């Protein structure tokens, strides 16, 4: 017999019912199922109708209509008797929900209840009882009935885990056996307990252990949703309410906080106040535990944007708690304010950090006098150290007076602030502390808290950088020595300070103490010969020649003096002790012995010159110079002598440079080759020529830069050399004065830092950083920084580093910027017809330098000495380029100054002429011209004249201060 559902039309209506049920449209599904059953009347359609009725009854239970559900279940069972079995389970639930669970429970009291029926009732309890109180409070059973006892235990445990923190004893439930109909409740109780203890994994395990057909299992999706922090899909209203009640709903708070951010951004005070009130209200309602934090952040934020604290407090409905967290925010906010309002705000930041320090110790964030306290102090010192000293001192004194007058931060602890007792227990002392405004006192505290060499070194650096005088540096070193009595470094500092003051006796005393502590220390070992030589030189200067022999004897006893060039230096001193009291004609005395010690005549003569110069025996000095430089010298020997002398000078901390002709000869000698110099000699020589202001030469900085560039290149080509150092020197050469390839120079410095950091050479890292910062500062501001911080300190990748190294190894020519085309008919400077012809190629190959006479007569330039043909032309271009160096500046001063070769234009405004003439009077015509072409240099050398010039430009109505695009160099002026 064909079934009704075999008919496609009927099948389609079956599918419609299923789809409606799946979508939760139970009532419509019921209508369709009724029509279908009316039309077909088959057992299949009846089964479908009963299933839909069951769904409708369950929906009624969910919607809180237990009586209606009971009526419907009775009707269905009456009308369709075959459905009784199918409706049994839902009928039980209807019975329980309509409060009629007593009916089956009451039968448990019957003494002759068959075992089968008991099992049936217990299954009913397991499946349908959703409130154990129905059993626990059921009067139809005796109070001692096991089910009532078990139900009461479950109720107590469930009440405990949902109302308070519980112990393991609360969860034990020994009354409930694992065969009891209440056994699933034990797992539910434990799951809730783990949920509140945030033991989510354990909670999930307990939920998995609940029998799937038991009543408590219906809560499993809800608990999973609670763990995730959201209600499960299609949750009943009570379940959704439970989720919100337990986990809270922060969506409105989030919105309020977003509004607050927007209000602060808008800058409208009224909007800010409204948003504060709303955010505080929502926070109090949804996350009350965060209210204090929110108030503290609002206070700090309002401070940064300068909204009155009183208004903010009113909007918040109370003051923020002034604990360590608040003061840290306060200090950071003041630091932010300093970025826009000026560095004076940093005083407020330091006050905030001091309050933070006190409260943090009080609250136990960290202990008193520990590394954390030192870190706070150092942070304050870092804030104050770079400030301009003069202005800083004036503002600081005013701040100190103000603090003392108003009692410091006492206003934050007034009774009207309603601070909690924990905060009031940490009220600032009266009179208020002010140490945090004095870097030296801050450093002192930090070093007292953590007496580490690094901290003392930073303190010392600050004292030196801020020109605090010798006494201040000595005080720091003394404090360091007291704190670390076994460390020789403070004694070395004291030694060097005394040496710098020419207090050599005292220096030797400190050095002896350092030697007793650590005689093997490299710095200590280096110091003694240096001091002894300095003593001998001082005796020579003071004409106490009889004491020199004693010094020399002492020097001879020193083991270090037997190494390197020190024996030659001793001989040079011995020579000076004899020659100085005699006469300039006695320069030959002892020279042979000295030459033997030095290894060559040139070095020996250079050492004699050095000693004569340092002894201030200038007559002798000149005589030696004449002898020394009167003959042609092989460039390699010249380089070696110069480098050895430089190394000795470095070891003796002497600033002595080179005789001027030597310095002039150096570039040409360097271009002939590296002279087989050692790595240390290359480094010393390059460091010397790139050390601005330390040469005695009149050679231009750019000539010296190109020489340093070349020397650094020799070092870079050596496979085992310290490439970091040579990259640093190369970078420095590219950034000197009128930098030709600044980007390349900066890349070299970064590569040097990276290589140095790999070798933990932090001194070189700092040096490279310092050069980079200074260059950037000069580019931006035109003057030297004082503790300025760089902002482009990023390193590079390994590939970039290799690329820079390869590029610099290959680049042998100092970058030259082509001279611009001549304009307005100005003649192009050219080599004079009277200039001597280029030296023969043969001379260049042999690397021979000219004699001194040629130099003095000005017949040749050492820089050109080895140039012939094309090379000579290149050098000519270099010279021209040097003459036209000012053209490479972005702008020159030119307004109002005529290009006429015959001096200032007759119509030159008097104000400008006045400045120009004063410059000429002070610096000479050529240098005055150069200064006028380099605003930065003029700003450094003559700031007042620059200001006058600017005023003159303003008065003339020349926008931009009279700056003009570059123009070719003017001719000679008279």
């Amino acid at each position, binding site marked *: 017999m064909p079934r009704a559902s075999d008919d496609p039309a009927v099948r389609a209506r079956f599918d419609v019912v299923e789809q409606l049920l799946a979508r939760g449209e139970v009532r419509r599904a019921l209508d369709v199922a009724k029509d279908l059953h009316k039309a077909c009347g088959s057992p299949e359609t009846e089964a479908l109708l009963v299933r839909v009725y069951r769904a409708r009854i369950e929906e009624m239970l969910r919607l809180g209509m237990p009586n209606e559900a009971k009526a419907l279940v009775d009707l269905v069972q009456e009308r369709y008797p075959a459905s009784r079995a199918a409706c049994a389970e839902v009928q039980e639930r209807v019975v329980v929900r309509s409060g009629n669970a007593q009916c089956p429970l009451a039968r448990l009291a019957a003494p002759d209840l068959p075992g089968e029926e008991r099992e049936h009732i217990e299954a009913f309890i397991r499946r349908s009882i959703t409130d154990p109180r129905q059993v626990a409070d059921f009067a139809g059973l005796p109070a001692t009935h096991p089910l009532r006892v078990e139900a009461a235990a479950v109720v107590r445990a*469930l009440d405990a885990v*949902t109302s308070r923190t519980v112990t393991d004893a609360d969860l034990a439930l020994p009354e409930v056996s694992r065969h009891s109909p209440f056994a699933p409740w034990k797992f539910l109780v434990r799951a809730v307990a783990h949920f509140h203890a945030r033991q989510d994994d354990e909670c999930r395990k307990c939920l998995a252990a609940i029998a799937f057909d038991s009543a408590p299992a*219906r809560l499993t999706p809800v608990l999973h949703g609670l763990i995730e922090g959201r209600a499960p899909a299609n949750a009943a209203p009570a379940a959704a309410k439970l989720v919100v009640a337990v986990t809270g709903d922060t969506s409105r708070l989030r919105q309020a906080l977003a509004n607050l951010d927007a209000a602060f951004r808008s800058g409208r005070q009224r909007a800010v106040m409204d948003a504060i009130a709303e955010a505080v209200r929502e926070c109090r309602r949804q996350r009350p*535990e*965060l209210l204090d934090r929110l108030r503290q952040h609002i206070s700090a934020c309002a401070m940064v944007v300068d909204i009155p604290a009183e208004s903010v407090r009113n909007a918040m409905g109370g003051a923020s708690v002034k604990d360590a*967290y608040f003061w*840290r925010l306060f200090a950071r906010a003041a630091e932010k304010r300093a970025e826009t309002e000026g560095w004076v705000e940093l005083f407020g930041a330091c006050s905030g950090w001091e309050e933070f320090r006190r409260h943090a110790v009080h609250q136990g964030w960290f202990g008193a006098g520990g590394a954390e306290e030192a870190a706070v102090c150092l942070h304050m010192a870092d804030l104050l150290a770079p400030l301009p000293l003069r202005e800083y001192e004036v503002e600081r004194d005013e701040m100190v007076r103000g603090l003392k007058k108003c009692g410091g931060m006492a206003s934050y602890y007034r009774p009207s602030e309603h601070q909690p007792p924990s905060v009031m227990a940490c009220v600032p002392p009266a009179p208020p502390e002010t140490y945090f405004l004095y870097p030296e006192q801050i450093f002192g505290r930090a070093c007292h808290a953590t007496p580490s060499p690094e901290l003392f070194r930073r303190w010392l650096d600050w004292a030196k950088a801020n020109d605090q005088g010798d006494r201040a540096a000595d005080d720091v070193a003394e404090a360091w020595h007291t704190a670390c009595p076994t460390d020789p470094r403070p004694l070395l500092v004291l030694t060097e300070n005394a040496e710098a003051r020419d207090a050599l006796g005292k220096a030797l005393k400190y050095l002896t103490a350092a030697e007793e502590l650590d005689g093997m220390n490299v710095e200590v070992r280096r110091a003694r010969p240096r001091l002894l030589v300095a003593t001998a030189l001082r005796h020579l200067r003071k004409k106490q020649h009889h004491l020199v022999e004693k010094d020399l004897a002492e020097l001879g006893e020193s083991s270090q003096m037997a190494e390197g060039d020190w024996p030659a230096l001793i001989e040079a001193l011995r020579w000076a002790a004899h020659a100085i009291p005699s006469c300039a004609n006695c320069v030959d005395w002892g020279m042979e012995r000295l030459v033997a010690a030095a290894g060559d005549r040139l070095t020996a003569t250079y050492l004699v010159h050095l000693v004569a110069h340092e002894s201030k025996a200038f007559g002798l000095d000149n005589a030696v110079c004449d002898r020394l430089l009167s003959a042609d010298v092989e460039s390699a020997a010249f380089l070696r002598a110069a480098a050895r002398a430089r190394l000795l000078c470095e070891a003796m901390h002497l600033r002595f440079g080179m005789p001027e002709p030597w310095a002039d000869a150096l570039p040409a000698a360097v271009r002939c080759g590296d002279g087989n110099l050692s790595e240390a000699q290359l480094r010393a020589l390059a460091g010397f020529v790139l050390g601005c202001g330390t040469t005695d030469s009149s050679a231009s900085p750019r000539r010296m830069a190109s020489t340093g560039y070349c020397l650094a290149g020799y070092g870079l080509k050596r496979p085992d050399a310290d490439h970091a150092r040579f990259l640093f020197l190369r970078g420095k050469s590219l950034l000197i004065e009128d930098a030709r390839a600044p980007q390349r120079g900066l890349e070299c410095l970064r590569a040097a830092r990276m290589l140095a950091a790999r070798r933990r050479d932090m001194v070189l890292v700092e040096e490279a950083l310092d050069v980079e910062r200074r260059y950037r500062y000069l580019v931006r501001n035109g003057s030297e920084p004082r503790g300025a911080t760089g902002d482009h300190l990023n390193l590079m990748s390994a590939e970039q580093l290799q690329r820079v190294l390869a590029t610099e190894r290959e680049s042998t020519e100092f970058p030259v910027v082509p001279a611009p085309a001549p304009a307005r008919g100005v003649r192009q400077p050219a080599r004079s017809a009277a200039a001597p012809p280029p030296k023969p190629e043969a001379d260049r190959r042999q690397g021979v330098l000219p004699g001194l006479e040629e130099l003095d007569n000005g017949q040749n330039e050492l820089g050109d000495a080895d140039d012939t043909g094309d090379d000579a032309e290149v050098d000519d271009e270099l010279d021209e380029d040097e003459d036209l160096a000012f053209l490479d500046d972005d702008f020159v001063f030119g307004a109002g100054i005529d290009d006429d070769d015959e001096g200032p234009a007759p119509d030159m405004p008097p104000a400008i002429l006045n400045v120009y003439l004063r410059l000429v009077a002070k610096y000479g015509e050529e240098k005055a011209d150069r200064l006028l072409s380099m605003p930065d240099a003029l700003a450094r050398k003559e700031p007042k004249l620059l200001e006058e010039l600017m005023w003159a430009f303003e008065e003339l109505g020349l926008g931009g201060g009279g700056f003009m695009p570059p123009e070719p160099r003017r001719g000679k002026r008279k």
Partner: protein
Amino acid sequence: MKTQTSNEDPWAVLGIALDASDADIRAAYLAGVKRHPPDRDPDAFERIRDAYERIREPSRRISLMLLQVDPMAPFVSLLDAAGPAPRRLVGMPAWLDALKEA
């Protein structure tokens, strides 16, 4: 994929006090990674490891303690940094109502 953990308070992530010693910090870290091994709970493991890395060294820890707060940070970050809301104890009736209607 690295999780966004930089805003979280590392002390809170590890469940330790601000004055916890080096040993306490390490113990909390080990306990955390034992509870959340990388193969089973990579996100939590990442959070714990990140928190530990940030406060393991005393110098970094102190710097973080001083400078981790930003007064101009969005206020919503307060909620994120505070972590999930506490689970409130709402009493038995609410739970039984949910069960009854489930």
